[in-house]
């Protein structure tokens, strides 16, 4: 018979063979599971930490990681750090849980990605924003004491960076092909260094940044077009990117809700004589997880 011939290459079912095949059947799924899950251990929720140089990003990371800030210097490379949420921090995903639930005692882990803030190294942060894998939120750290200076240089630089970041987020919505709104992206503007005498409180930080962005987007729209230098780019006349609501009105962070970007401003301080105060920021992190 034909089918017995076709099966004749099959080996005899000896006990050893059976044992081997059983082992294979059992071990392959296990191995696959191990491999897949060991490579995707990065799927913890990630929060991106950005802001101008010297705002206190790396100090904040070390504070969140070990509970006390260490000395830091200007960063040159991004660095991802695993931190665990303090116990009892309200977490959005478990808001329907009973307060007596024992899972409250289990610490929730997340990754915080620190990026360098120096002007030449911001492409790291921009890359992370444009292709977010498990990005849950963005913390924009700003030096609240620097904003209040007379020359407004600090405020302008911070606003410029923030403008670029928000524009990038806005482009996610405007450039996407599908009609579905992009994933919600909460942004926290962390007004750092509130322990300093000259620091602005959170509402003032908000208004300062908003007014600077208003000025900035105006002058940017009046500015020259960006260009590559190749011949193919010459005849392309692209529209200027305009952040927020089109029109002459001032820019407000609330305008970005249209693009599913929720901006919130909270104050705190990483270092200080009376210790650090980052409870509000922790709560914000909990609220987006």
């Amino acid at each position: 018979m034909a089918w017995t011939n076709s099966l004749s290459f099959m080996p005899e079912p000896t006990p050893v063979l059976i044992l081997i095949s059983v082992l294979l059947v059992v071990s392959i799924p296990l191995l696959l599971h191990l491999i897949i899950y060991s490579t995707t251990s990065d799927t913890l929720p990630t929060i991106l930490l950005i802001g101008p140089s010297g705002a206190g990003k790396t100090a904040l990371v070390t504070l969140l990681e070990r509970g006390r800030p260490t000395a830091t210097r200007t960063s040159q490379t991004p660095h991802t750090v695993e931190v665990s949420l303090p116990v009892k921090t309200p977490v959005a995903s478990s808001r329907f849980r009973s307060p007596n639930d024992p899972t409250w005692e289990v610490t929730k882990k997340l990754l915080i990605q620190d990026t360098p803030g120096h002007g030449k190294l911001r492409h790291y942060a921009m890359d992370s924003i444009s292709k977010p894998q498990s990005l849950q939120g963005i913390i924009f750290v700003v030096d609240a004491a620097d904003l209040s200076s007379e020359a407004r240089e600090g405020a302008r630089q911070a606003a410029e960076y923030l403008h670029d970041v928000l524009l990038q987020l806005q482009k996610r919505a405007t450039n996407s092909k599908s009609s579905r709104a992009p994933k919600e992206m909460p942004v926290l503007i962390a007004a750092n260094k509130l322990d300093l005498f000259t620091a602005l409180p959170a509402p003032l930080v908000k208004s300062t940044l908003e007014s600077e962005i208003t000025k900035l987007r105006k002058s940017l729209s009046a500015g020259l077009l960006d260009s590559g230098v190749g011949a193919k780019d010459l005849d392309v006349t692209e529209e200027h990117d305009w952040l927020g609501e089109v029109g002459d009105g001032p820019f407000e962070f609330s305008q970005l809700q249209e693009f599913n970007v929720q901006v919130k401003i909270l104050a705190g301080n990483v270092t200080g004589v009376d210790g650090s105060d980052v409870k509000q920021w922790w709560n914000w992190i909990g609220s987006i997880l």
Partner: protein
Amino acid sequence: MLDGFEILTTSGVVLWSKSYAPLSSGLINGFIRDVFIEEKVLPSATTADDTSASQHSAYKREKYTLRWASVKDLGLIFVAVYQSLLHLSWVDKLLDNIRVLFVDLYGDQVRKPHSTVVECNFDDYFDQQVQELESSAEASQRTPQITRNDENLKTTPDEESEEPPPPIPGLLSGRKSPNSAAPSTDATPTSTPDTSRPSTPLNGHLLSAKATRGGTSRRARKAASGKPTAVDGLKEKSVGKAKGKQLRRWDADGMADEDEDVPLDYSATSDADSRPVSSAGVEPVDMAASGMRTSKGQYILKDLDDEVHSILQSAKQKNQRTETSKPTGVVGSSLGAISGLFRNVIGGKVLTKQDLEKPMKGMEDLLLKKNVAREAAVRLCEGVERELIGKKTGSFESIDTLLRTSLSSSLTKLLTPTTSLSLLTSITNITTTQQRPYTISIVGVNGVGKSTSLSKLAFFLLQNNLSLLIAACDTFRSGAVEQLRVHARNLKDLSDREHLGRVELYEKGYGKDAAHIARDAVAYAKDHNFDVVLIDTAGRRHNDARLMSSLEKFAELARPDKILMVGEALVGTDSVMQARAFNAAFGAKRGLDGFIISKCDTVGEMVGVLVSMVHATGIPVVFLGVGQHYGDLRTVNVGNVVGLLMS
């Protein structure tokens, strides 16, 4: 004397630091900015080989000199700070040793992902190193008698022979005492590795040899230096010698033999005793020296010495082994070649200079083809090479891809400006806060398109409803003023028709001093409420010292807010010289603020001039001229330029 020492990661976390004098944090931040990020200071000495005791490049800031060493794959930077007035020759050695020690002791912790925490009690090791190197450096300048003794001490870590560091006199007694004081431990020979020797002598012999070991080796050295000494007994001496020889090995047996009785309660005492030594010290070196006199202090110091030396020694040996192990017969080399090939494909290969040589050449050729000046191309490639040597390729990453990403990221870094280039923002800033016109002057070599670029810039500013004064300060070439007059007339017509800003030409004819005309133009503009003064200057060859020298006076009198240099995209290698000469021409206090690269439409993708000029000076490109019309002025899109260069 050192002022401070810091170990930090490239991600910005200070892992360990020690400062002997208060240092402002701006010092090291500025150092990182200038050296690593903006690369203003290029390391002159190539510290290619990671573990060699080569000269580390220095960086001077304020009154301090900073020397640094780095471990690339771990992202560690070691910085030593001292006052420039002092000449510390041992800092290089210290950096090398500390690097080896730190990586050996805490490398695993640094490698751990998703963490910045490195638990380190590095103070003792550091103090030991400083003390040792400092004393050896001091001693080498003193009497020759001590010099001979201490020269040994200094050179031990890098000596090729496997000799243990000769004990310094204070330690000698300490080394002898534990052996004689605790004979009971030595009397159990089963636990010592000595029993493995084929012809083991009697226990008593061994013991006595051990007890006098320090002395014997001393004597042996004396004998070697030519002085005959009394010998106790031939056998004993030979045993002693053999013992001494064996002890000199710093691997398993030598160490095991020595430390056998030391760790008895070392772990308990070390913490308790080393703490006050390190923490109490205003002058830690002195404290350590005095600590040596107490009997317990001896133990600890000696042990630390041993540990440090063994680490350094093993690093040295490893280094030598890798050097010597290369030519190990046909089989070994072919195996190595195969695994190397395999690694090329699969990744995880540690890059060496040889690996990079060929692809580097390709990169350089690519850059040269894109009209990057040779000097800039070579230096860029060197920078990339320096960054890559000693790095491991990622999984399934070939050298070429690694090289490409590395080069494109360093090009991006180079071309990205440090500060915002928004001209309008700075103009409004000046005109509103200081109530004076914003002054822009344009310089450049003959025929690169200064007047054309200026009129394009004027058109752009007019579109933003600013009032302009164009000052014709080219009083040299005939027809220059007329040319500007035509531009001014055209622009005036345009602005009248479109109801934009206003424009006026300030001219004083030919033959006058350009600097004075510029000053007068600024004063005129202030009186008549102009927002911006655009100053056109005469073209000058950058190697003509007479013409270039007048620029300094010009900058002083006109006080321009921005000096922009026009360079053409067509120029090749000369661009570097041009940019440098013009940047230096305005005196010590003033430099260029930006470049306008004209005629970009004529070169296609050969945009290398941007790279050459920025690389030579570190000054950003502000505008590109891309056509014949007034509107053909563009800002730089760094991503596009890098894409063109890498294509």
